[in-house]
């Protein structure tokens, strides 16, 4: 089964769960006087769930015939691309998200920029580190001072 149909299967699952919530569980919390309204909070989701189930089933069963196109990247040969680098960058992004608050903006951002370049195969430390540090302080200054949005610069331990 091609990837687009697998995705349709997942979407069908999402629509079924969504529909179950909309049709069977959501209305229990509704105040009795609101039940006199012609429109309930669940009305629009009910409609969407039905349409979603129909559409995802059509894609899943392949009822709509179209020419098979291979996009910019052929996912069937994913191993030929730099998939390892992409996954590591995604992990790095998630790690950045988790570290931003406790470790502080300055350290996490500089580390993110340096490690990002390292993952991509860069080894010129003498360029990489100054670029990352200067960029980090520049962005921190712009966001904090010019835009006026607070970014905790230092780790929580240091009271930053």
């Amino acid at each position, binding site marked *: 089964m*091609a*990837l*687009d149909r*697998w*995705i*349709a299967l997942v*979407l069908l699952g999402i*629509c079924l769960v*969504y529909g179950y*919530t909309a049709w069977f569980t959501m209305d229990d*919390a509704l105040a009795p006087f609101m039940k006199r*309204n*012609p*429109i*309930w*909070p669940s*009305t*629009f*989701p009910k409609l*969407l769930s039905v349409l*979603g189930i129909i*559409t995802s089933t*059509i*894609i899943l069963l392949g*009822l*709509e*015939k*179209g*020419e098979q*196109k291979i*996009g910019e*990247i052929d*996912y069937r040969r994913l191993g030929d*691309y*730099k*998939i390892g680098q992409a996954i590591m*960058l*995604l992990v790095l*992004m998630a790690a*950045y*998200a*988790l570290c*931003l*608050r406790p470790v502080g903006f300055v350290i996490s*951002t500089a580390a*993110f*920029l340096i490690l*990002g*370049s390292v993952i*991509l*195969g*860069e080894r010129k430390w003498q360029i*990489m580190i100054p670029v990352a540090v200067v*960029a980090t302080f520049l*962005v921190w200054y712009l*966001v904090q001072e010019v*835009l*006026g*949005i*607070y970014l905790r610069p230092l780790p929580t331990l240091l009271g930053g």
Partner: protein
Amino acid sequence: MLEGILIGLKTALSIQNLLMVIGGCLIGTFIGMLPGLGPMSIIAIMIPVAISLGDPSAALILLAGVYYGAIFGGSTSSILLNAPGVAGTVASSFDGYPMAKKGQAGKALTIAAIASFCGGTIGALLLMVFAPALSSVALLFHSAEYFALMIVGLSAIAAFAGTGQVCKAIMMTLLGLILATVGEGALFNMPRFTMGLMDLQSGFGFITLAMAMFALPEALFLVLKPRQADTGAGAEIKDMRITMKEAKSIAPVIGRQSLQGFFIGVLPGAGATIASFLGYAVERNLATKEEQAEFGEGSIKGLAAPETANNAACTGSFVPLLTLGIPGSGTTAILLGALIALNVTPGPRLMIDEPQIFWAVIISMYIGNLILLILNLPLIPYIAKVLLVPRNYLIPFILFFTLMGAYIGQNNSTELLMLVGFGICATAFKFADYPLAPLLIGFILGGMLEDNFSRSMQLYDGVAFIWERPMTLALLLLAVFLVILPSYRARRARLRAAGIADGD
């Protein structure tokens, strides 16, 4: 109208807003030139900056400047490297790149800049005429018609997605609408589908979703498949002048394509990309036999046509946004999201309630186009140096700006995890050829669609509004027709290909 233009001039010519246009155009050109980064990603990255300006006209002027700057930058990399940064400029590389290979890179850039300038300026003139007319009609609309109109917009976007894609585009739109129902709605004070998570109480962040749908997959694609930039051919940019004869030969092309591009841009779902390809095809058919042979080998007409059309279409796509509040493309959807975040509701009342925003944006389009011509064009040889930045440095920065954009919008690091999660989903969708723009448009229109639907349901005590208001019924029928038409045509084409004779 004259009063409006004067208000617009006053707003657009303030020092701050002039700086916004110049800054926006430069940033747009700069980033738009990088292969793989489209206008949607750039605008998504710029939104937090625009929102923190606090002034809606300045924000919209900045974002609009970034938009056409990005299109201009995209055409530069199409011409110099044969690596279009933006889908709307792919057609420009057909003739632009051969010209650069022949050593006429400077001339090609000048033609592209002049064509873009004319397309954008004529487009802005048409916008001035059509937007007020359309908004006076739109003032007669009732919430039922609005609901129907949004359905028409969403189905048109799905219908333009191409054969075999209509269901996928509809599915993506529905997914966007489903995501929009998460959180507390405006009409009902009750959280929906939050799965008990406090972070979802206010719904998914629109910037997070925009970044995850566009910026992140594009950056990941750059990682997965490093594009070999062939800097050798077009690196030298010299002799940017064009002759009188050349100017004369492209003038009619520019005139035709400005009109055609604008009207294609107005249609929901058909944006700069369709306009540029269609413009190229039409001009090739209109050209004489000798000129036709030149197309694809470095014809100046073949370069002027898509360049004019894509800029005119960009301007055209502002018509539904400013008059109806309904975005026709991913980019205008992002602009709509930014406006809503700034407490401005685009729609027919915009012209009456906040004329300074409406007219300042239009006036700033002229200024923006002028700046692209007189400021960016001479700077291109220097800006093109950005193409030499190694990707090992570039990609971490793109990812970092994506993260920052989502973070400073909400100041919440859970948002960053959602960004990564949605980004992975979006990349999978992109692999499987699911269009992503409908998802974002559905998400942004979702709230308004439900509000208008609920209001009509309440006024008519049920779904009676569908048949009691003829205009609503007509619009809904049009929407159904738009969705069914492509599959019907595809079926007929298949039958014909299978050798079954048609009835007529």
